[in-house]
């Protein structure tokens, strides 16, 4: 199963900050367990651009589509045997403590 992880901020995080090397250790664990990972950080919402086309007209706006106190800080695409493996692996991501992680199963369009 392929899952997209949205690494998001959260209004009630655990106190403390991410220690250097935590994320590297997480990626390394995945590598050792044979969980393929592809992911990265995302630039903050100040750098985001939203595009809409309405009535044939292009509307370009600054920032995210909706005003939100929580935002997506990064993503990972992982390949796991099932949801339990994904939950177990994701539970050790540093942002599971300092933010929150949404696990979304991929829905292949097979184009």
């Amino acid at each position, binding site marked *: 199963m392929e*899952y997209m992880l949205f690494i998001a901020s959260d209004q009630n995080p655990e106190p403390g900050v991410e220690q250097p090397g935590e994320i590297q250790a997480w990626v390394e664990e995945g590598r050792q367990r044979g969980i393929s990972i592809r992911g990265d950080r995302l630039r903050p919402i100040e750098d985001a651009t939203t595009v809409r086309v309405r009535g044939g007209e292009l509307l370009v706006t600054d920032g995210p589509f909706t005003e939100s106190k929580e935002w997506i800080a990064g993503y990972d695409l992982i390949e796991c045997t*099932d949801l339990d493996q994904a*939950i*177990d692996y994701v539970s050790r991501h540093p942002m599971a403590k300092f933010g929150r992680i949404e696990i979304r*199963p991929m829905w292949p369009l097979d184009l």
Partner: protein
Amino acid sequence: MNADFAAVSGVVAAVHRAEWGRIVSGLIRLTGDWALAEDAAQDAFATALERWPEGGIPGNPAAWLALTARNKAIDRLRSAGTERRKLGEIAALEEVGIFGEVGMPTIETDIEDDRLRLIFTCCHPALPLPARVALTLRTVAGLTVAEIASAFLVPETTMAQRLVRARRKIENAGIPYRIPPAELLEERLDGVLAVLYLVFNEGYSSRSHLAATALDLATAVVDLMPLESEARGLLALMLLQNSRRGARVSGGELLTIEEQDRSFWDAADIQRGLAMLASARDRGAYVLQASLAACHARASSAETTDWRRIVALYDELLVRTPSPVIELNRAIAIGMRDGPDAGLALIDALEPRLLGYRLVPAAQADLLRRAGRTSAAAARYREALALTTDPADHAQLERRLAELEA
């Protein structure tokens, strides 16, 4: 050979109760299709009701139903145009005896494992709680969608949708169909027990059908996982609470344990509950709650209840699961052990953490009444009444207030 229709429906109901989960779980393992498995099982039971009055009840009704359900599943797959290869696999599995031979000792473990797999999957924490409850009742216990809908007071279409979504999520999100590995087992078992207790409580107040279903399911979990003390604790707790069902309401009013006529308590439930509790080795939250219920079950009146032991059990429970509501119950028990003033002092200290909780003024009123402070008690009963919406609770408080003012 004709069979009496009443006899047939009796046998069908008994097999349904005992074997539904087994049959469905086996079909899910074979086909990977939850809806198909449930439909095929339902078809098989309907066929039994249709044919057995004419043709007689087969020697092994459970095996007949399992085999018929498998055939119904294959029929449904065939008409859905499933490839020959897949059908061949299912037939082959059947030939090597993995499915269909209910009661055959060599495969018993597989079949039992199937049932557990089903329970754990239905109660997976990634499913929303109402879906876990609905799926457990439908897939494991075999209640119809209409029955579940009416038990939870939602329209049947809503309940059907909830089940469709839950099955879809199991498939789409990759929720594994398995018994959790050792490192997850305790946590997941807690989740299963919580669902069963919720079903029981939903049925305890009025819908006894649900309570009976919860008791059946908890009994099955104990049989399947005999070493798990918490499963035994939950079953003991349910049985001991269930024993009081016939005594807890009188004339539409809820009676407290102290007020209930203990001769109406079900002796068989109490005996089973106490035996189940005695067989639990570890002292988890359910075992402790069952131990509390057992203190009441063993006593012939409120006065002769072992309040010292009850307080000690609450202390132990608070270490495991700190909660102001448990502290309130402990304070009430202390009021019974050491006199009303001791209980009242503890409740006063607790009050800020339980603002607006109707059982706080109700407990204070009871203790004040016992201390002979009538007008203070009446004021607290009125306060409790203002916070109470349940008609049976309301009637109880009204009566106490009236007694006080008489």
